[in-house]
């Protein structure tokens, strides 16, 4: 038994969710191999050799891997699979992993398992369905188990203590049916949403995009990331990469502050594993109060600046 973890990175740094995926891979038992593909990813490969529990790092450098397109990475993973006969292939359930892993699975003619939250045994996994309203235990009878891993459900593997061997991945020819043109990433000095210790999220109650400034000011006092409900994204207040929920990001920070968010099940799906939840909402009946450790029934336009001021003292 052996597992391949497809590493996510930006050529400079490993994306943290890869470390969560490695932990899930370790839980299966058997050897853990990581595959790093990129245009200039020697540094990331080096970083991975030191991660605890990783036995081998396969490295593939080629111009075709620019933008980590699934059309190009799939044949590479298949070639690696062919050579090493992995029993499991996984990656983090991020935009990258969700895009790539099903493509690999279909090529292997196996059904993948998305976004697992628990490993019961090497062939049995737990995942959420219906926006977290139900937990489903799935047994995968495929010859190769392909799955993605919810980052918040597994600890990150330690970045030191390992001494993996580096090896060149088997070659695969460029496919050339897709082209990566550009990336337009939201610039922010705040911590990244899925790994932040504190998250301040806003909903429709904020009333406008400009009013999100209130949340940014509060977030900056707490070194927090800023998120949003789908309603706020739908209303055009903020971009979709801030969305926390069933079809957005899953977060589980130490502290989650929901501001002007009613607490639809689709939103709760993305944040209810947070250690402490605070809700600020003027509607005392809002469902968000049913999951909040601390609820404050108040006008957010007064309460949030007041909180920011208090924390500035």
């Amino acid at each position, binding site marked *: 038994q052996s597992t391949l973890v497809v590493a996510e990175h930006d050529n400079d740094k490993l994306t943290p969710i890869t470390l969560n995926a490695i932990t899930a891979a370790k839980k299966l038992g058997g050897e853990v191999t990581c595959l790093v593909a990129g245009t200039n990813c020697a540094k990331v490969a080096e970083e991975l050799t030191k991660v605890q529990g990783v036995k081998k790092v396969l490295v593939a450098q080629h111009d075709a891997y620019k*933008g980590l397109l699934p059309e190009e990475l*799939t044949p590479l993973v298949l070639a690696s699979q062919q050579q090493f006969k992995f029993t499991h292939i996984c990656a983090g359930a*991020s*935009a*990258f992993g*969700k895009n*790539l892993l*099903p*493509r690999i*699975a*279909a*090529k292997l003619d*196996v*059904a*993948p*398992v*998305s976004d697992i939250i628990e490993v019961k045994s090497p062939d049995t996994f737990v995942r959420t*369905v*219906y*926006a977290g*309203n*139900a*937990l*489903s*235990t799935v*047994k*995968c*009878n495929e010859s190769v188990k392909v799955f993605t891993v919810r980052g918040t459900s597994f600890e990150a593997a330690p970045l030191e203590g390992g001494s993996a061997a580096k090896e060149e991945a088997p070659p695969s020819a460029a496919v050339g*049916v*897709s*082209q990566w*043109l*550009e*990336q*337009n*990433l*939201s610039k922010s000095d705040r911590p*990244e949403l*899925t790994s932040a210790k*504190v998250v301040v999220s806003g909903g429709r109650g904020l009333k406008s995009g400009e009013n999100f400034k209130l949340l940014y000011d509060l977030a900056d006092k707490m070194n927090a990331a800023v998120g949003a409900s789908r309603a706020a*994204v739908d209303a055009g207040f903020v*971009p*979709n*990469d801030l*969305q926390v929920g069933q*079809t957005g*990001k899953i977060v589980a920070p130490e*502290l989650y502050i929901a501001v002007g968010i009613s607490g639809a*099940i689709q939103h709760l799906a993305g944040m*209810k594993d947070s250690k*402490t*939840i605070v809700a600020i909402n003027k509607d005392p009946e809002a469902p968000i109060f049913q*999951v*909040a450790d*601390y*609820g*404050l*029934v108040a006008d957010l336009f007064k309460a949030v600046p007041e909180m920011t001021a*208090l*924390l500035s003292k």
Partner: protein
Amino acid sequence: MAARVLVGVKRVIDYAVKVRVKPDNTGVVTDGVKHSMNPFCEIAVEEAVKLKEKQLVKEVVAVSCGPQQVQETIRTALAMGADRGIHVEVSGKDYDALGPLQVSKIMAALAKKEEANLIILGKQAIDDDCNQTGQMTAALLDWPQGTFASEVVLEGDKLKVVREVDGGLETVKLDMPAVVTADLRLNTPRYATLPNIMKAKKKKISVVKPGDLGVDVASRLEVLRVEEPPQRKAGVKVETVEDLVSKLKEGGRI
């Protein structure tokens, strides 16, 4: 010009329904529960219909897999502007076990049969939350994939897709034919008007079986148990912001 677009439409429990787990833990209660088109499939239909309105495609074909009732979902797509429907009949145990891999095989087979050169699907269904079908359909056809799309532009025989990724947006250019999966901001789906609902009743829905398409729907995934998630206990109400901040400080959260 893209000749024909296939759009997948899935019938799911309506997003506003509070889903309940069956007491025997075999699944969730679906009988007597309101069903609708998966919201991301609505976005996919809207995008396809828009391409047709811009005369960039000739025909929009809505496909759904499942029992008789999925024809209602196909009718909704027809009322939104799709030209015709294909109902892939799957029922009973086969339907219970029907997963994204089987649906992808059906979509891929239909794409060949119908000579489609664009497939638009929702990025995810809100029932199983799998987020797989588009990627797998593309793989089976060896077509490129523009998943989680927030903008789609047809440029000759290429397709420019702006994608929602974790840190923001990313733009890719794909050779046609291709598969696109719709994210939230791709468009706002229209409501079907009464005249269009009436018109949709006259549009044709053909019925096929997976076997007619050479697809075996056997699944090698087995759901052992479905259960309620642990419930979070409600906490306390605080009266003032000061109260809140001091509680958070006591708890070491800030």
